[in-house]
Every structure is written in structure tokens, then in C-alpha cells.
């Protein structure tokens, strides 16, 4: 342990091993998704917990982000006499970047942490071993509905976040700053393109949802069976999810070429 070089090597090996485990875990989840017991009831229950209960925080955050964008955009653009471009600014920044990324970060904090903690507690109290003893695959019963629900609810929440943000910008620009309602909406409509912007937004949301679901369930599933292990799993699921969402966002934007 005293040798720092061995320590570094050990850490690197552990990291590579964790990546390999994640790949194997992903394959197992994908295999469970295509296999018969559909677990639809569990999926709906998870959709309620991850999606419906995240609605309030998503809508309030979206509204606040849109309002701030509208305010900042107005104060910057009015100096150039271009306050009719506020709608364009708010819409494009929300749809291209802020909508998918902030939704994913909020879902990672709100739902991903809860998922990791729940599965981690199941590991600590040996519930998953109990399931295995009854020859029920815990990946199919516990992990699959959670990962699928995360994948489905993230794009829906992203859409609602963007809508709330656009409405927030509208409220500030038209209500507070006495801007022209027509130029807000027409600037928005003429700037946003379905193929360039909205497809990119939805693609990001789907990829982020997949990442969040896999990372949260993986960290919970592989947590140490102690109370310390559960808390470490919860923390690291949020950290890893957030960092990988931000890195992945750059990669998608660069590849999409907007």
C-alpha cells in the first residue's frame, strides 16, 4: 500500500474492471428486456416514482431557467436594439443544450439517487439473494423496470422542461419587459428547425436516460452490503451520472455538427 506506483496501478485496474462490469451489466439488462416476463406492472410503478413525482421539480426548474434566460438575454440584446431575438435565444439554448442536460442532471439527483439507494438497500438486506434463491432473476424483476422507466421518462421530462422554459422566457419578455408577443413566438418558430434542433434534443434525452438508468442501477446493484456502502453507491451514482451526462453532451453536439 505504501508504494504509490502500485497504488496507481491498482486504481487503474479497478477502473477498467468497473467499466467491464458495467458492459456486462448492460448486456444482462438488454437481454432481460427482450426476454418474456415483461414486468409491465413494475414498469408503471417505476414510471410513477421516477416520472410523475419528478414533474414538479422539472416544471419549476424549467420555468426558472427560461425566466433567467429571458431576463439576461433581454438586457444583453436590448443594447443592440435586438430585443426581438429574445425568443430565438431562449428557444435555441433550451432546445439544443440546457433542456436535455439540466433535465438529466435533475433526474440524476432526484430519481437516480433514489434508485441507487433502493437497490443498494436491497443488496445490504440480502433481498436480492433471496430472489436468487427463489430462482427469480433480480435483474429482470428489480433492475429492468427501473432502467426502462428512466429511459422512457427522461425524454418526456425534457419536452416538458423545454416547454416550461419557453413559457418562462415568454412571461419575462412579454409580461415584464413589455416585449412584443408576436416577435417572441415568430423569432422562436423561424429559428428552431425540427431536424437540426428538436431531433438532436430528443436524441440527447434518450441517450442521457439510458445512461442515467444504467449507472444508477449498476451502482446500487454493486454496492457493498453495508450502510456505508449504500451511501457511497448513492453518492457515486449521482457523481458518475452527472459527469458522464456532461461529457456525453459534448460528444453528441460535436458529432451532430450544429
Amino acid at each position, binding site marked *: 500500500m505504501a508504494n504509490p506506483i502500485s497504488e496507481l496501478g491498482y486504481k487503474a485496474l479497478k477502473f477498467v474492471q468497473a467499466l467491464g462490469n458495467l458492459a456486462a451489466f448492460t448486456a444482462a439488462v438488454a437481454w432481460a428486456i427482450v426476454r418474456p416476463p415483461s414486468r409491465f*406492472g413494475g414498469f408503471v410503478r417505476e414510471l410513477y416514482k421516477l416520472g410523475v413525482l419528478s414533474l414538479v421539480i422539472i416544471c419549476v426548474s424549467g420555468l426558472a431557467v427560461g425566466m433567467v434566460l429571458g431576463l439576461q438575454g433581454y438586457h444583453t440584446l436590448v443594447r443592440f436594439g435586438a430585443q426581438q431575438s429574445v425568443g430565438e435565444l431562449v428557444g435555441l439554448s433550451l432546445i439544443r443544450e440546457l433542456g436535455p442536460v439540466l433535465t438529466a442532471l435533475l433526474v440524476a439527483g432526484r430519481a437516480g439517487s433514489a434508485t441507487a439507494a433502493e437497490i443498494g438497500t436491497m443488496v445490504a438486506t440480502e433481498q436480492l439473494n433471496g430472489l436468487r434463491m427463489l430462482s427469480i432473476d433480480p435483474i429482470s424483476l428489480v433492475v429492468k423496470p427501473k432502467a426502462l422507466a428512466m429511459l422512457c421518462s427522461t425524454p*418526456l421530462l425534457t*419536452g416538458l422542461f*423545454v416547454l416550461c422554459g419557453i413559457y418562462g422566457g415568454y412571461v419575462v419578455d412579454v409580461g415584464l419587459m413589455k416585449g412584443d408577443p408576436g416577435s417572441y413566438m415568430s423569432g422562436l*418558430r*423561424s429559428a428552431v428547425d*425540427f431536424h437540426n434542433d428538436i431531433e438532436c434534443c430528443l436524441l440527447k434525452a434518450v441517450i442521457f436516460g439510458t445512461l442515467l438508468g444504467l449507472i444508477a442501477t449498476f451502482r446500487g446493484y454493486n454496492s457493498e452490503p453495508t450502510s456505508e456502502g449504500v451511501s457511497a453507491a448513492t453518492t457515486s451514482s449521482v457523481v458518475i451520472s452527472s459527469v458522464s451526462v456532461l461529457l456525453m453532451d459534448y460528444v453528441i453536439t460535436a458529432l451532430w455538427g450544429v
Partner: protein
Amino acid sequence: MERSSMRDFLVGLFMLAGIGGIVYLSVSIGGFSWHGSEGLHVSAAFDETGSLTVRAPVVIGGVRVGEVSAISLGNDFRATVEMNLDPGLKLPTDTSAQIVTAGVLGDRYIELQPGAEEKVLKSGDRISMTQSAVILERLIGQLVYGVTKGDSKDNKPATSEPAKMP
């Protein structure tokens, strides 16, 4: 697993709201359409489009009646601008198109001026009378060139001098 009708209802509502939001974003804000053939498609050739962009508005008398759907370079090195107008619009065949700017530095859009002909434009028709975008920098350049030229030649008004590119 226990069934809870309230929870199922809320989940259904959530999915409907989410899908509805995405559809609204796509169709109303993103301009997505299932079939591109709806509407009146006309084209016009311009010498200079300036910074006209796809999805720029097309207006008549300040009222938005459609948008630019494509801009391409024709065989004669003139820019061909495709417009997608409201399907119910009955435009005379001698309608003219002009690229104008909102404000001094604002966005460019196309203004149509309907003529007096009896026959109306159909989808696929071409507007022959066009007026190109005015490039402010070029105009200033011509003005400066014209003024200096007018100064060097005595008492010649700058405006009557046809500007030649050096």
C-alpha cells in the same frame, strides 16, 4: 402486484403530457410536417439573397403567409429560393418578390407584392419579377467610391455616377 387506479391514471396523464409536449415542440415550434407537399410551392430567382435563411418568413403587407423552404444555386448562377405558402393563397401571376431587411441590421425576409393579373399562381410556378437583397456594406462602398470620384472630377454629382467595381 397491487393495482392502483389513481397511480395508473397519473402515469397515463404524465405520458400524454410528455408526448403532447414533444409533439407541440416538433410541429408548432420546429415546423415538422408529415407530408411536405401541402401548401403552395413557388420559387423565385434572385441575384443576391444576402443572409436570407431557410425558414425565414414570407410576408404580404407585413402579414406572414409562409416561409422559405430551400435556397439553392441555379444553373445560371442565380440563387433559387423555394417558398412554401399558405395553400389557400390566390396570388396573381405577376406577383413580384423582394428580399427586405427588418430594421437596419435585422433578419432578412421576403415580401411579396401581388399584381393585377387574373390568373393565379399554382404550385411549382416561378415568380419572375424579383428584387435582390440590398447589401449595406456594398452600398456604402459604392457611395464612398462614388463620392471620391465625384470630388476628383469637378462638380459631378455623386449619385449620377454609375458605380463600377475597380
